[in-house]
Every structure is written in C-alpha cells, then in structure tokens.
C-alpha cells in the first residue's frame, strides 16, 4: 500500500454519457505513438457488453486466498473492435489530387463489428421499462493491483506518494500478463512499440497541480479527485464519511481506488403507464456492480435530497452539487493532509 492514495469519485447521477472525458484523454495521451486505438478512459452503457467486450467476465484479479485468477487477453479485433481508419481522401478527393473519388462512399476502411460504443444507450428491459446508465471507466489504480502482481518483469509499480500505478515503459517487454490479470481490462497493448500502456492518472498534470484531463474537462462535473486521507476533500467525505461512493466489483480483490455514486433511476411504469414507485434499475444489478451497500446508498441519496427539497441543509447534497469547479479537485500534495 502506498503512503498516500490519489482517488477519484464519479457521481453516476450526473454523467451525461457525452464522452468529453474520452476526447480529453484521447488528445492528452492516446492519439499518438501506437496508442491510437486505445481508450484509457471510456464511458460504457450498462447493462451491456462493455469495453472491451464482456470484460466483466474476462477473469483476472484475485481469489479469496489472494491468488491471481486466470484472465483472458482480449482479442484485438473481436473484443476491442478492429480500429478503422476513414477513407476521407479516397471517397471525397478534397485536394483534387485524384482523377475522381475512388471509394463508393465515405466510411471505415474495415467494416467494424464491435467497438467501445457498440451498445451505446441500448441497455436492457422492454419499452417503456427499458433502463440503462453510463459507467465511465479508467484504470482503478488499485491498492493491490493484479497487473503489478502478474508482471514477470517487475515493471509495474505503485507510486508511494500518490498510489498511481504505472507500467515502466523502459522495462516493459509487452508480455501482456498484466492485460489478462487486470479484472477491469484497463491495460492495453501498444502494438507499435510492443509495450503495455494504460491510464497514468495524468501524473504529469497532477504533479503540476492540474486535475487529470478526464476530470478537469468533464462538463457534467461528475469526477471528484483527491487524496483519500485528505479530510478536507470531497473524495474523503464521499468515500469515508458519507460512504456513498462505492468501488466497482470490489470482489475482484484488487482494491480499486475509483469510486462510484450509484445511479437513481425513474420509476417503472405499470401496464397502464402509471409510475409504480419502484426504481427501474434493478437493485440486484447495482449490487452486482457496486456491492451490497448500493441500495442503502440510494436510500441515503434520496433522503438527503428530500431534506434539501424541504429547504433543510444537506452537506452531502452540497458536496455532490459541487458549487465551484476548481474545488472538485484537490490534487496538490501540498494542499492535502499529511
């Protein structure tokens, strides 16, 4: 365990599914150097197959005895979706360089059959009781990282000062054990350089006092970033004091340090179209993702929200509202508690 841990809380009730985080991360890190088809950050629709395809059933992590569980390395084409290029020049001839366009229409150079947004907004259920929500995902910078445990080179480590888990790009030889071992499938293989790479929690930004790009640039203001032990910060308050931010699939045994405020949902409708008073996202599904406390947390959120509606104060609601963008983030080590 690192001396300190920089953590993130994502309030799924505020997520727009807009993928600005994904764009921000793309231009910050993954539009170059063999990473073009990686998404260190992405937002997936749940329930769904997720990204990479069926990652929740792909193994990895630790069993109850602390032993690594076997994990599958996703197939590049099938599970990530073959990354395609777009035939702009051939289909449109924008420079007038071709005698005439050579492609019948604009599109991917290889027909896609899967991708990170393949099941966007699909979800489950039947009209009008269908349901879905957005689940943004980055590397969890786990307390007990399976990727680290699985690396035969000892090239993955956890920084003592902030708990950020890094793949040493100088020592990695691309064996990809880490990719199979990560139960969240958030380590990617760089085919150009033969190395594994993943979210670095924007440590070069954090070291300059800037929030990670995905969080800083989130228009929904859903991502709180700070040290878990910083008692003055929202992350500490939401995770430890209010206990409304829950880890994703804690049973994977890695101790993830990204936490989620689980989503409320509109009432189900009866066969006449009348609201039933029952949330349409089944509690069982939230329990599957966020553990047994998910329904209790939804109860706390509703109760505090009702207090606020009645005009009573609620420190929890004020925290989640987050009145000032710059106060959502407390990434400077100087600012934090010791």
């Amino acid at each position, binding site marked *: 365990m690192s001396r300190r841990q920089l953590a993130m809380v994502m309030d799924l*009730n505020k997520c*727009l599914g*807009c*993928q600005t985080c*994904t*764009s921000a991360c*793309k*231009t*910050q*890190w993954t539009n170059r150097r063999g990473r073009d088809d990686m998404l260190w950050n992405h937002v997936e629709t749940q329930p769904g197959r997720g990204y990479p395809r069926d990652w929740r059933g792909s193994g990895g992590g*630790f*069993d109850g005895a*602390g*032993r*690594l569980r*076997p994990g599958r390395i996703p197939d590049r084409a099938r599970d990530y979706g073959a990354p395609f290029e*777009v035939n702009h*020049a051939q289909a449109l001839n*924008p420079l*007038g360089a071709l005698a*005439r366009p050579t492609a019948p*229409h*604009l*599109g991917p150079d290889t027909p896609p059959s899967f*991708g990170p*947004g393949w099941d966007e*907004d*699909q979800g489950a259920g*039947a*009209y009008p009781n269908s*349901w879905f*929500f957005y689940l943004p995902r980055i590397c969890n910078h786990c307390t007990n990282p399976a990727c680290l*445990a699985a*690396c*035969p*080179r000892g090239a993955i480590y*956890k*920084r003592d000062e902030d708990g950020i888990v*890094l793949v040493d790009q*100088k*020592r990695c*030889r691309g064996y990809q054990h880490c990719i199979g071992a990560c139960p969240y499938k958030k380590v990617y293989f760089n085919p*150009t*350089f033969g190395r594994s790479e993943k979210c670095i929690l924007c*440590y*070069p930004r954090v070291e300059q006092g800037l929030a990670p790009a995905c969080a800083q640039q989130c*228009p*929904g203001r859903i991502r709180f970033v700070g040290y878990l032990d910083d008692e003055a910060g929202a992350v500490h308050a939401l995770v430890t004091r209010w206990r409304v931010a829950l880890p994703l699939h804690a049973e994977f045994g890695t101790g993830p340090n990204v936490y989620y405020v689980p989503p409320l949902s*509109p009432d189900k*409708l009866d066969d*006449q*179209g*009348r609201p039933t008073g029952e949330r349409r996202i089944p509690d069982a599904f939230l329990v599957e993702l966020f553990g047994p406390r998910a329904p209790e947390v939804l109860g706390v959120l509703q109760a505090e*929200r*009702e207090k*606020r*509606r009645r005009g009573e104060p609620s420190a929890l609601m004020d925290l989640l*509202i987050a*009145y000032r963008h*710059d106060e959502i983030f407390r990434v400077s080590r100087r600012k934090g508690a010791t």
Partner: protein
Amino acid sequence: MVSRRDLLRRGSACGLAAALPDALADAAGMPAPHIDDPGNPLAGYPHRGWEDFYREEFAATRGDSQGFAFHCSNCQGNCAFRVFARDGVVVREEQLAQYPQIRAEIPDPNPRGCNKGTIHSQSMADADRLHWPLQRVGRRGEGRWRRVAWDAAIDAIAAKVVDTMVQHGPGAIMLHAGTGIVSQGKRAGPLRLGSLLGAQRLYPSSAVGDMFTGASLAYGIPNVGTSLDAWFEMDYIVLWSFNPSTTRIPDAHYLWEAKWRGARIVVVSPDYNPTAIHADLWVPIAPGTDSSLAMSLVNVVLAEGLVDEDFVREQTDLPFLVREDDGRLLRLADLREGGRDDVFYAWDEAKGKAQPMPGTRGHFRKTLRLGALRPALSGRWEVQGADGRPIAVTTVFDRIRAEAAKFSPEATHAHTGVHPDVVRRLAREFAAARDPGITVGFSLHKYAWGILACWAQALLCALTGHEVVDTEHQWSLGGIGPLSSPKPARFGSGFYGEWMAGRMWESFRRHHGRDGDFARRAGIAPEALVELAARASERKWTSYWGPPRVRLMFADNIFRRNKAASGYRRAVLDATELYVDVNTRMDSSAEFADFVLPATSHYEGWDLRGEVGYHRYANLTMPPPGLKPVGESKTEWEICSLLAARIQQIAKDRGIGPLPDPDFVVERDGKQQPVTRDLDILHDEFTMLGRLKTDQDVVRWLLDNVPAFQRWKLDDVVRNGYLPLNTQAGLTSPLYADRPYRSFEEQRHLRKPYPTLSGRQQFCIDHELFVQLGCSVPTAREPLHPARWPLRFYSPHTRWGIHSTWRTNKYMLRQQRGVPHVNLNPDDAATRGIADGDTVRVFNDVGEFRAMAKLMPGLRPGTLTMDHAWEPHQFARRQGMDEPVAGLLSPLELAGGWGHLRFGAEWDGNQLANESSVDVAKV
C-alpha cells in the same frame, strides 16, 4: 495458480527480455534499460527515471504557443477553450474553465465544452479538409477537380457576379452564410458583402427548422426563457422534446445539480433518452402528439381551478372580448366606423361595459397597468356595433375553456399514450410548484403541430402564473447593423425558400397527397396546402425572391440538410448557373459545387461570439501566435474582401456605375430614391474605407460598437479569452451580473407591453388562416404521419456531431458503429426478421436509404429513429437519411401580414423533419 508473491519472485528472476529491442529507448532517446530486480514494486520502485517519458509528452501537448477559441458551429454552447500549438501546428485544446461564479449559491459554469470541441485539434487535420481552391472539371458531383489559384477563382466568380448583377439584378445572386458559421466575426464578411450587393440570403433559423413559432404566437418573439443556470433555482423542471444531456452538454450539469438541490425533473419524450435516465418521471409520448398532451394539461388546470387569475387578467389577452359570430377579437373598428383594428376590448366589471384595454398596439397607453379596470375573465355580453346592431361577445378565456374541454386526459390518452393519472399529476405538480419551468427542445417544432404544442405550453405557464415556456432563450446583441447590414438585402424565408427552391411539394404530394386522412388531421386538404404555399409569398405572408442564378454559399450544408434530398438537390442545381461553396471540408454540399474555396477552421482566425447563448459570456478566438495556415485556406472576411476588390476592379474597368435597386427605397436629400448597388466602390464600402482590413479589425470593431460588450477592450479579451456581457445583453429583462437571466421582467414588473398585437401574452390569433383551420385559440391536432407506412420516422440531434460538423471524424465514428445506423424497437425488428447489426433498407414512396440496424429497447414500438445529420456521402450509394423524408409545411406557419405575425426574424416557419412514415426491411 500462482500468488502475487510468487509472480513477483518469478518476474524478478526471469529477465528474459533483455535481448528484445527497446522501443522506448529508441523512441525517446533513453539509454539502454536496467533489468535488475526492482524488489517489491508495491513497496517501492528504484527505476523511476523513465517517468519523464510521459512528462515530456504532456509538455508537448501544452505546446510552445497558446491561443483562445470557441467553436462557431451551429451549437449554441459557445464554450471558451485554450488552444495549444507546437511548431505552428495545433496539438491540443482544453476548456478554459475560467468563467467566474456569479453568486455563491449557484454553481459556476465551468468547464463547459463537449466531446466534439475537445477533439477539433484532430478533426481540423482530417483528410476531408480543403487546402486550396478547386474548380470542377467533370459533371457536378462527379468529384473531378482542378486545383486553381486564388486569383483565378476570385476572378471567375467576380466576373460572373458582375455579369449577373448587370443582366438580372441583385436578386439573381444568393450570398448566404449558413449555420456552419454562427459567430459575429465569421458571419460579418458574407453578411456585409451580401448586404452591399443586395443579394438574397435565407433566414438560417427557419432553414434548419429552429423557429419556436408557438412562442412567437404567444410572446411575439420565438426565443424566450432563461439562461440555463436558472435551472438550478427551479424546483420543478419539465424537459419536453428536449434531451439536454446529449444536446446541451456544456450546461446540462445545472439540471443534475438542481436535482441534488431537490428539484423534480420530468422528461417528456417518445424514447428513453440519455436525459430521461436521470429524471424522476419519464413520460413516454407518441411522437408528434405533444399538442394533445399540452392541451390536456390545460384542461386539468382549468377543470381543477388552478388558475392564477390576477396574472392572466393583466399579462394575457384572456379577458379580451371575442365576437361570438365569427370568432374574431372585438376591435374598435367593430364599434366605430373607421375605427382602428388594433385597439381591443375587455368587459370592465367595475363599470359594467366594454372598455379598451391599454397596452395594445393601437392604444395610446403603452402599459399593461389596468388602473381602475376590472376585466372579466368569463361571461357573455352584447355590445353595439358600428352599424348600430348588437354584437354578441364572450372572452378569450371562455373560448379557451371550451376548446380545452375537448381534450380531457381521457380523450387524448389514445393519441398520446400517456395515462390520465400521469397527466393530472403533471398538471397539479406544475401548478403547485414554487418556481417550475418547461424547457422545450428544437425538435418539437420539427413536427407539424409543434407550433400548437408550444402555444399550449405557453398557455399552461400563463394560466398557472409561472413565467414562460423556455424556448432556448437568446441575447440581443445590438449595434452590429452598421457592420453586417449597411444596406437592405433580400432576406428570405428559410423554410419557404427551401420549399420553393427544392420543389418540395413534389415529395409532399407523393407522401401525404394520397393519405386520405391528411385533410381531417391537418384541417386542410393536401392540394389546398400546396396552393396555400404557392400563394403565400404573393400575399406577402412570407418572403421569397425567386431562384438565384448564382449561389455563393458559406458553410451551409444544404444537400445534407434538406428533405427529399436528391429531389431538392436536382431542383437547386438545375436552377443554378454558378454554385460556389466556401467550406473547411469536402462536405455533401461542397461536393456538388462549381468552385470550392477553402476557409479557415475554428482555431485559425480571429473571431468573437456573444450570441445566441445560454450563458452570459462572449468568447474570443485568437490563433496561437505563429500558427501555420492549413494549406491556402483564408478567413471568410478575407475571401469576401478579395471578391469585393475584384468586383470593384471589374466594375471600374467596365465603367459600371451605381446600379439602382428599386425593390428598396431610401430617403436621400429629402427624396425617396432607390438604393444603389455601387459595384465600383464595393471594396471601399466593404472595408469601411480601409478600416476593416482583417478579421482582427472586425473583432475590434465589434468590441468598440456592440453595447453589450462595453466596457471591455481588445486587450482585456486577449488576456482572458472571454468577456462577460453587460446588463444590456438582455432582451426583455436586464442581464443582471449576479442572477440568471429570465425573460419578460420588464413586462411582469414594469408592465411594459409584450411585442404582440395585444401587447400581452396572446392566446387568440384571428388571422384568417387560423380561423379557417380552427386554431384561433390553442388546440391540438393529430400528427400527419401517413398510416400507409407503419413506422413513424424521427431524427433527434446526435451527441456525435453538431449537425454534420465532426460527424466524419474517426475518433467520433469509432465510438459509434462506424457506419450510419437506424434505431428500431426489438419487437419491430423481430417481426421483420431483423437482427442487430443487419444492413437494412428504410423506404417509403419518397425514397430510401441503407443503414445498419441497431435494436434499442428504449425506442417506442412503431417508430424508427436515426440520429440526424449523417452526411449523405456516408451511406451506401450516397443516398442519405433524408431521401424518404417528404417535404411538408405546417399550414399555420404560412400565415403572415397580421399583427405580430409578419415575416422576419421573429416570425418564420420550419421545415418539418419528423412527420414522414417509413418501413424497413433486411437487405
């Protein structure tokens, strides 16, 4: 199985990769790697020197120079960004996120922005980008081009413009800036040049179907409501035909923060959309039946006595008297020979007689204050007419009550699919709320009866005394006229102009003309509607200047947007002798041009944008110093300036003096004289005698002359990247520095009249067409989808583009299906043997296209949807999604020449995207 410790030990012992090439070292110039045992990497790690690898990358993305930008696409978000360039090339952008909080109780707006804006640094270099002028050498649309020099292109275009002006007059030119550029800086060039030439231009808002005509009926202006931070103050928020989590990404956070503040959120939409997922109540409604639901809400409010009588007595025309014989408002002209037709009456309970109401257009008292008047809301009386005969009168309120009585929640249930209990709950909760709001989206008026739905929504707000329906409010930036409109131009209706230019009645006849039920639902037979449309411009109800011979089109993707797409394209191209497209990329419209001229994109020139906005900031675009141009692209201002200079030279060379333009008359030396089009001094006029040489000069001019921008100077804006608008930006209320904007404070608190005929929120329109169609007070109509085809087709806005902008970027496409897809309910798909991922044909009697099928459980059975604005060239056979969408006009939107319904910025209609039916089959 092995434990973590085992692995660590094994890993440290193996070291078998020593022989592999070290790509990192190669790439980053680092020394050969150490491969010694790191010990326990969980406890400490000795080899951290490599971490500079990502630090250096980060530094590279911060660039060596910085600029500011917003994206001037047809998104009203208008978000401030910082732009980073390295070696003269843009490498990245990031939201500025520096907007101040206006008050501690309201969250600040930061960071704003969206997935598209944050990817533009990549998109601006996509391979569809235009780099130099192209001249067509093959048939139109064939894709055969010759690269030409700017001089040659400008020469040829200018010569054709001069010839056409001389032979056919200025009306034969269209110089139109579309919605691809909506900023005050970028638009200034084409608007100014078009104005000086007297060229045609279309009203962009109506051309793209963004007119809130229902709001215009009620308030006299289409864009009213609040800045989006006002959501945070509300306690009951209804989002109707509006999906802000997708379409208002920069500001949607105020909704979900309001929810945590305790607000109830209701979403009314046919599909379970990304906004509905966070709502308290989702009201699934059959597409196009919104007017029925709105009238049922009015019905409940009236039936249950939830009316704020003081409000409606003063602020609405509900107490106005209406003649029982012809349903028209009682006017002074009815009571006195030769009397005015814009003075109206109410029954004064204090004096027991009809009294003229102050504040109407014709009344000398310009106030809503009632003084001693006690206008009755309900009753029947007789007044003596001008001819001495009695006229039976009642009130608008009673007319409305009678109309609303037809639309009980039970009566509309079958149309809307909304259970009466839900309707009653919605009406009661809305009426009882402290500060409720209804915000409607741009898609509502893309249905034929969006106009009626919005008018009834306005009525619901009025009856309950709750502000106004929020229709995407706008600022009013005055002071731009001398820059953009130095002379009168041929301003034409957007929706009607495209109907005429594209011969859209042809597809209308095919699709709706054979629908036996159309006349009952529309209140007018199909041929009568075609005839009505044909006569609308000669009756001066709307504005149309005939088919232009020369089209100089800036950033307008007409062949992507218009309905019955290939029919429209054929009609337009056949009528056009020269079609010039100024664009950043080869879009579906540039492809068919005779000349394509490359324009700078969002980060590459100076620009300023202060409207239309949901927030109070005007943003600056300032290129990073040292930015290299993309190819030979030029700013719109420079392109227009070059054209103006060349036209002036040709005119001088050929001795062409001022051309009188008798369609417009001005007073000069005390005499009425026609405006002249002075080609021989065009460039001098265009540049204000050399004052406006560059786009930066334009930005400076705007800062100096727009009252809402005062007191800010260029230096301030260059330092901050934005400026806060001052109080004058508000249209019907001041824009207070510390409060969200809300329309009509001047009307509610100062009792200034509304810009309507009645001077009030108006719910009786006795225009002959409204009377003929039985719509003189708010009512409801069934949608016009022909039943012959089983699926109602509608096309919501996408999160993956601002219309077609960014639609073809690979990073955006990779997060979708990569190819255009239509959405189907799984049951509708199953009955047709369609599986997710199949290629399907969507077709009807107008046209067809092919796309991938995506099965969406949240989609209403009996509907088929597709995110709008895919480029036609993204489809197989390049037949896009508007092929089967028939031309259609809402008959009410053709009205004009009456009261506040006169063609102009506040009153024009919409192209209707969402009233066609289709079927779908597996290919």
